[in-house]
């Protein structure tokens, strides 16, 4: 092996090690640095084959055995797909494009509102405690025929704030029944109220004026 060959092998080896250490350079990635009270995260912005960053679905449980549900899907490149089932006024599939700032802002608000770090067990206990107090006064409260709000979030990396640990390949699911009614009922529970703010934000996105009916394209 002559000197040139050795030199070439070293260069290639160095390149492989470099790319391995900085794999994000192989594809485009948006990285947001965390602050003391703000989340940091990263997600792939070239998402032709990637899983969505956000998937939001309304599971309307009054409907029997109907899998077709209203949903919102947001990819890392800002592509937004909205689906309304046949039984809704806006039945059809719609799409639009969020710019990078909007998507980052949306993820930051999902984090700030606690959806990404929602402690289901803790909040359920809070609700049970409230109902128990109510019951002790001989009072009861129920909501029939729930809607289950489901929000799935997938990020390459997530850090709740600067003092938290970074989590690679982050996936989380927020699921809550009757979030609207609970937010109204349990006004003093910030976790529910804030989560409902995020849900409202996603609902607003599902009605965004920029959405275009894919069937009309």
């Amino acid at each position, binding site marked *: 092996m002559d000197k040139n060959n050795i030199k070439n092998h070293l260069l290639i080896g160095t390149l492989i090690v470099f790319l391995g250490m900085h794999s994000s350079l192989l594809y485009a990635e948006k990285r947001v640095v965390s602050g003391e009270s703000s989340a940091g995260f990263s997600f792939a912005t070239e998402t032709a084959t990637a899983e969505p960053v956000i998937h939001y679905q309304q599971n309307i449980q*009054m409907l029997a055995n109907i899998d077709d549900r209203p949903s919102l899907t947001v990819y890392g490149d800002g592509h937004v797909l909205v689906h309304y089932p046949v039984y809704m006024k806006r039945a059809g599939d719609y799409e639009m494009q969020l710019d990078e700032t909007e998507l980052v802002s949306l993820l930051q608000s999902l984090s700030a509102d606690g959806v990404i770090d929602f402690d289901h067990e803790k909040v359920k206990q809070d609700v049970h405690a409230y109902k128990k107090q109510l019951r002790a006064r001989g009072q009861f409260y129920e909501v029939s*025929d729930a809607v289950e709000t489901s929000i799935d979030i997938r990020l390459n990396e997530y850090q709740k704030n600067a003092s938290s640990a970074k989590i690679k390949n982050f996936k989380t699911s927020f699921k809550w029944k009757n979030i609207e009614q609970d937010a109204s009922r349990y006004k003093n529970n910030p976790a529910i109220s804030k989560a409902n703010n995020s849900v409202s934000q996603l609902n607003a996105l599902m009605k965004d004026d920029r959405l275009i009916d894919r069937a009309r394209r």
Partner: protein
Amino acid sequence: MKSVLVKAFILNLLLCASDTLYAGAYIFAGEANGVDLVTHPSTYTGSEDVVTVRVCIDPSSPNAMDMEYSVQNNIDIYNQLAPTLGNLKSGSNNNVPSGALDFESVALHELGHCLGMAHINAASESGLSGNNQNYTKATDGADNVLNVNAGPDGIIGSSDDVRGDDQNLVWFRKSNNDPFTIDSVIDSTTYSRNLADLPTGQAYAANADRAVSTLLGHTKTEAVMQQGTYYDEAQRTLGHDDVATLRYAASGVDERESGGGNNRNANDNYSIVLEYGGISNTNCDVSMSLTNTTGLAFCEVGGALIANGHVRITTASIEFGQGFNWFFNSSNTAPVLSAVGSQNLIEGETLTVSISATDVDPDTLSFSASGLPSFASFVDHSDGTATLTITPVVGDASLRTVSITVSDDGVPVYTDEETFDIDVAALDTDSDGLSDYEEITNYGTLPGNPDTDGDFINDGDEVSYGGDPLDPLSWPGFADGDIAPLGSPDGVINAADYLVAQRIALGEIAATSLELAHGDLYPAGSPDGVINVSDLILLLKLVQP
């Protein structure tokens, strides 16, 4: 502080000391609040005879006026409190457009919640998914897991389900555990939540799911309080289970229709009356509105304990998501009776005529018949079909004009009618031209023997031509010369007749009444009772052209 603790203690006692009560699928019943918690409509406190629930439409609601017709129909249905079979109408059997959700059906369900009823199936609140939500409503028991096993019949929600330690929340009819039937008395003597009261050999309380109705041999039916609606489907009338749940609560805090001992009394029984409060927010017990909720529909209720194991609704409101493709039922259309047509039969026969009618509205249809003879009966099966059974006996031969009417229960009520004939022909068993009825009643002849007196002339001919069918020596004067072949004239006058007459005249054979009736021609118009040469001469004239 002390008084608060005492009150809380008493309330806990009220909630926990109800093991002997048997309630059903009521909205506050469950593991946390207690399984024996009957819920009553608002305004009931334990002593009212009539509990009035005022239902309004929120003036701020979109489509408020569109909702009115359906809401008033809902109110009528709850006031009638009539159990129905076949209350699921899909496809062309309803007037719901494709892809639309029937507002009236969903409102009927939510109004049921606002009156205190819960889902009779496990439903979404169970955490189960898909068809498993159709298991009978229960708590998860000591193992904290809902046990789901459809049992040998494979039908979820039926009486052979294997549910482990799941605590049943649905009352059932003790006598048969069939939620598509109902008792005349509905209280703790006839209904129970306790699985020990199930009929022998049954494992769990059946719920009024559509698949269970088919299993039990009923027309496809489902309780309104079964969670799970479809688009393109209408369900605008109550099932037996819905009626029984409301009536069980109406048996009052003692859960007895007729009162009883132990300081219980019948004064706690009540009847439910819903009244329409219009598009208003004044004095409303239940308020309905379309809102921007993401949900399809829900009833939000508050309740207060009124007695041991008994809660009444204190607040109730229903919201419908305005983003959904609602169909607002707006007018009634008439039912259509399938053609019946004239019915023809003979005495002694039985004719069964199936009657059916359709209605694009999911109304309940009822049939009536007028002009029916006593030998016909008419049964309304209460499922859009009826049966007319015609069983005439000897003597019922007649032509009758009958009308059948089908009516819907819409507003206004519409009907369809058909008038047709029932034509019953007389039975003539021996084909002698006399009906059996005439033979028995008028002539005393034998309906099974065409020639009662054995004179070779059938009874009908004897009657028609002046003979006596009971006297072998009496025969009609046909005097047509037709006597051959001997014993069975062939209707033709020819040489054969002459040859037979000649043999009679010569004494070779004896004339019977049959030969005398046909061959005794002389004197013309008043035969002399013998066949001789004079008759041969007249017969020869008939034979010769």
